[in-house]
């Protein structure tokens, strides 16, 4: 693995909803096999960026290369390359844990025997194997999260996107999951791209960090370099020094705004 092998290349990426510019001409690269943290206050444009990287949104301008593919024109190749754990739950509550994974496996064309083996492995790993035949609607928030993480790994993606994956999880589970992911990163060279509001998590786990605020990347470097550059002891202090003390709009309002723009947009 060379240092120069880029698995994500983003150039001048921009997304506008109506008059609201959510992402403003950002550029960054992620090396293959890296663990990359994408940090920023609420409403900074993290989720919008992830949606563009994962083919869910069309960029207004700019270009993306993901595992060598363009998410706009080579959708299926791009989609095969990554797994994603969304910020909001995305399981089918009316299906069982097992069925949710099976559904995913079939959509990603994982052969039956392999699928069964991996589902068992992953469910055992997230400690849900004994609940595999229970409907997901009976699960707690933490259990759903674990199931989603298992699902994101089922098709052995090259890149794993995680939008605030550890939100609502207790420290034990968080540790357990990160240890597994680090192991996977080391053994299989899977690239991990994640967002989080837990700065100590990013500091401990990420090899590189990009800090985004108001749609612009303000800094991209290793955690050590960021601390050094801002002359702060911890990443949290550095983060606040870089993005200011002002409390941001709640995520929900930002999303509502986006929905409103989206609606105006689709109605033309």
């Amino acid at each position, binding site marked *: 693995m060379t240092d120069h092998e880029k698995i994500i290349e983003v150039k001048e990426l921009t997304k506008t909803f109506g008059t609201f510019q959510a992402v403003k001409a950002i550029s960054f690269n992620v090396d293959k096999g890296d663990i990359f943290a994408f940090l920023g206050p609420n409403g900074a444009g993290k989720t919008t960026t992830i949606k563009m990287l994962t083919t869910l949104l069309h960029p207004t301008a700019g270009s993306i290369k993901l595992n060598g593919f363009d998410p706009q024109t080579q959708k299926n190749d791009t989609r095969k390359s990554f797994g994603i754990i969304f910020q909001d739950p995305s399981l089918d509550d009316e299906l069982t844990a097992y069925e949710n994974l099976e559904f995913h496996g079939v959509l990603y064309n994982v052969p039956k025997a392999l699928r069964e083996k991996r589902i068992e492995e992953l469910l055992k790993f997230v400690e849900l194997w004994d609940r595999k035949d229970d409907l997901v609607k009976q699960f707690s928030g933490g259990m759903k999260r674990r199931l989603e993480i298992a699902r994101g790994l089922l098709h052995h993606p090259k890149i794993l996107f995680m939008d605030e994956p550890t939100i609502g999880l207790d420290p034990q589970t968080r540790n357990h999951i990160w240890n597994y992911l680090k192991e996977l990163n080391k053994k299989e060279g899977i690239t991990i791209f994640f967002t989080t509001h837990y700065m100590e998590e990013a500091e401990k786990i990420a090899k590189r960090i990009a800090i985004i605020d108001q749609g612009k990347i303000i800094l991209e470097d290793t955690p050590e370099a960021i601390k050094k550059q801002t002359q702060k002891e911890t990443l949290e202090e550095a983060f606040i020094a870089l993005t200011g003390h002002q409390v941001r709009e709640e995520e929900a309002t930002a999303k509502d705004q986006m929905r409103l723009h*989206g609606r105006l947009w689709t109605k033309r």
Partner: protein
Amino acid sequence: MKTIYILWLRQLKRYFRSRARMIGSIGQPLLFLLALGFGFGPIYQKAGGGDYIQFLAPGIIAMGILFTAVFSGIEIIWDKQFGFLKETLVAPVSRLKIMVGRTLGGATVAMVQGVIVLLISLLIGFRIQHWSLVPLAFVFMFLTAVLFTAIGTAIASKLDDMQGFQLIMNFLVMPIFFLSGALFPLEGLPKALEIITRLDPLSYGIDGIRGTLANGSHFGLGIDFLVLTSSTIIFLILGSYLFSKIEI
């Protein structure tokens, strides 16, 4: 094929697991059959129309299909709100396949609903006139089911939340039902009403079911089949197009 199958299977599982939905969706057709069937029966008989249940049952079968099918299509809004749609949209599967799998699943569920209503109407006195035409009746039922699931999908692709649901029920589904000839014969209507019933695709579904299970098709089975098939194709294309444009 496997992906279409798993999407189809998901719709079926969701339906059969939701007992409330099954019972709820049988309640309404049953009420219509009993209240209207026996309520208007004597008058219909006096007017020389014969047995009203015999006339009404195909209309109510189609009603069961219509409501379930539109609802199945509209379920996409739930999937949007509960996030599951994202899971299917980032998968390496074409949107067309997703749409086809979902639509076939929804249509199958609606078809099951129609068969249940048919069985209920047999219990309360409906008599099938031509048993040999039953398979053909099923074809008409299935086409109706696919058509209205596709319409539901097309609408749901443009909506973000359930606020619009009442609007759709009151300004689309109810008019489609009441102006279709489900409850009254299409002969000798005022001109305006006649034109509307001719524009309503459900009219042809009901006419096809009535023409095969009971007696007397108004438009002729050939016309029914032609109109139903072509409008199904049109709405499948429209639904696929709108579904492919969804951004979340």
